[in-house]
């Protein structure tokens, strides 16, 4: 006779009590965020307008949601079928990745066809180029955080070094983008090593704090060293990237005239799109390659156990420095691209929020996973851009509802839910770098996150 699982069927009263508790918490959280609204009155003073119905709505939603969760059947334990389902889902993930890559390649053409040059600009620039910059930054930081397990909160510093390297070299010496790109990468790598030295002996939280400070120092130096960097005002009219010497300008010397096309700003954006795509793919290929080399395995071993590494004759100092240097170099490339795309850089582009966003991308994607990081960059950057398009919500909440006000709130909420659902990110498994038999994934429970 099969025993009925007692623990899994909770009495209705317990479910109700739990739902009431969640409802109360939701209501309490909604009080400062939703219920109190500050409106300027006629003399431009802020007055508080209570919106109790909103708060009530949040409480009810919390209550109902929790109750619904309790009513759902409990999760089934893992079986052989589950393992099979896992394999099937892996195949699906691979197919999805291939599809995604294909979509990324034809994205500009697709939107051009669908929306015409006028409407496509935003979709290629804000959604395409912007996301790809973060994909590249995420991949760069993934070397440091995901592979070597070194928590770096100041990654934006290398992005800034790359951007200012290009800005200064291009405005002062007229150097071309293609010469500045490797120089920017090398300078960023140099600063990566400089940062690496003092923090080599630090681990975990201490490492995080020092790298955070380093990021801030670079930003403050950029603000205060105005003789070189023009301070807060930043550097403007940076030469844009050229198509191997052909600038994207109207007139006989431009790209469009050379190819006999009518001038259109969209050409430059499409070019930038494929340029950052190429840079990001180079970052990805280099990382995938490095992972299979002794240096990459040493990074991962360092994340797993630093003391064991040293007992095997691995120089952990050099190993950490190479991780910092290579991660920084890719950040520098991305920075140079950023400067060439914007034509303007200022210290405000490189504040801590940027570092936090890039780190969030790596953590949300799953440390060490290239595909996960790319997906997280699309979700975070693309998602928060998409939330600007929520005008249809006006039909739901009325004309005076401004969706953009709730943009960051929704992003935060989505991230909290995501990290609850998958604490180790989109992709938590790790594929070994070398096999004797069949390719197998390693479950996330075994993989360490590194303690600095």
């Amino acid at each position, binding site marked *: 006779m099969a025993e009925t699982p007692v623990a899994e069927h909770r009495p209705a009263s317990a479910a109700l009590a739990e739902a009431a508790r969640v409802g109360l918490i939701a209501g309490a959280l909604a009080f400062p965020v939703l219920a109190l609204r500050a409106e300027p009155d006629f003399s431009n003073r802020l007055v508080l307008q209570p919106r109790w119905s909103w708060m009530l709505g949040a409480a009810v939603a919390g209550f109902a949601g929790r109750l619904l969760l309790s009513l759902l059947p409990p999760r089934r334990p893992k079986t052989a079928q589950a393992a099979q389902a896992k394999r099937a889902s892996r195949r699906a993930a691979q197919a999805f990745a291939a599809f995604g890559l294909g979509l990324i390649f034809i994205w500009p053409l697709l939107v051009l066809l669908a929306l015409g040059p006028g409407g496509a600009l935003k979709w290629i620039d804000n959604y395409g180029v912007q996301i790809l910059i973060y994909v590249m930054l995420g991949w760069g930081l993934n070397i440091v955080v995901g592979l070597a397990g070194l928590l770096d909160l100041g990654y934006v510093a290398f992005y800034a070094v790359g951007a200012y390297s290009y800005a200064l070299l291009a405005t002062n010496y007229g150097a071309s983008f293609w010469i500045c790109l490797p120089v920017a990468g090398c300078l960023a790598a140099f600063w990566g090593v400089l940062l690496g030295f003092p923090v080599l002996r630090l681990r975990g939280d201490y490492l995080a704090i020092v790298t955070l400070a380093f990021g801030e120092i670079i930003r403050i130096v950029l603000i205060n060293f105005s003789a070189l960097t023009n301070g807060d005002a930043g550097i403007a009219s940076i030469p844009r990237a050229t198509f191997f010497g052909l600038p994207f300008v109207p007139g006989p010397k431009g790209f469009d005239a050379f190819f006999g096309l009518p001038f259109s700003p969209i050409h430059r954006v499409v070019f930038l799109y494929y340029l950052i795509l190429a840079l990001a793919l180079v970052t990805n290929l*280099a990382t995938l*390659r*490095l992972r*299979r*080399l*002794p*240096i990459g*395995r*040493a990074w*991962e*071993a360092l*994340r*797993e*156990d630093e*003391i*064991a*590494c*040293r*007992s*095997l*004759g*691995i*120089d*952990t100092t050099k190993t950490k420095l190479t991780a910092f240097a290579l991660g920084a170099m890719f950040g520098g490339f991305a920075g140079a691209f950023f400067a060439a795309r914007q034509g303007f850089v200022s210290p405000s582009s490189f504040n801590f929020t940027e570092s936090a966003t890039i780190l969030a991308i790596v953590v949300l994607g799953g440390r060490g996973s290239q595909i996960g990081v790319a997906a997280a960059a699309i979700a975070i950057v693309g998602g928060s851009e998409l939330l600007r398009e929520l005008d249809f919500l006006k039909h739901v909440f009325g004309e005076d509802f401004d969706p953009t006000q709730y943009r960051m709130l929704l992003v935060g909420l989505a991230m909290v839910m995501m990290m609850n659902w998958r604490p180790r990110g989109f992709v938590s498994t*790790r594929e*070994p*770098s*070398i*096999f*004797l*038999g*069949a*390719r*197998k994934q*390693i*479950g996330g429970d*075994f*993989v*360490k996150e590194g303690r600095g």
Partner: protein
Amino acid sequence: MLRVERLSMRFGGLLAVDGLSFDVRRGDITALIGPNGAGKTTVFNCITGFYKPTTGRIAMSAEGLADPDAIDALTRSSSRERNGIHLLERMPDHEIARHARVARTFQNIRLFAGMSALENLIVAQHRPLMRASIFSLAGLVGAPSFRAAENAAKQKAGDWLARINLLDRADDPAGALPYGDQRRLEIARAMCADPVLLCLDEPAAGLNPRESADLTALLRMIRDEFGVSLLLIEHDMSVVMEISDHIVVLDYGRKIADGTPAEIRADPSVIAAYLGVPDEEVDAVVQEALS
């Protein structure tokens, strides 16, 4: 091949190792035994460079015991190495592993848990692979010389996996293996680093009698087939007495006995240290037994 002289290690007010001297001879299996807290792991940490000894000298030579005059001459100089003699207390941990070729395992296993068993053994061959990859450049372009080196490393790892009966679990995460397998994998990993002296910290801890017997066979094989000398810390007296050529007994950081298993077994001070009775009482017991 290893000569430890007047080694002391102080932690604050605690003298964990107190003027310890002993030799490890080439081709021997030397056991370091003693009650918990006697300072055995601390001695290992000093030999392998994880701790810097407070005082004392540790001379290592792959060729067998070095000439004392040569060690003295090296000590007076400021260098770490001369004519194949290394002064370990002057070297950082990773250089001891690399140049003096001393490998070790840990009392609480330190495998790379999230990496496969095979990867663990490949990481241990970091040095030769790194040399073959020429600053990763040859590796990045996939040069044939690097491919060949990598295949050789894989071959060696596969060979060791076969020796420890883990060939069928080569691609599983090391952290998922049973405890006994993890112990043996850690030993195989240390061996893949190509040592001349292998230091094992309680390799039989937590093993059942069958696994202990396998371990003994593995250690013998390492010594006989690879000519690697062994220094091991062990609590399991059956293992110690069976395989050691030479035993050093430690109590409260001091050496209380040093000799062959037969000598140690008969040593009253060792019995006292293990049973926690004063020497006089042991003497009485021994006298009684003899009469």
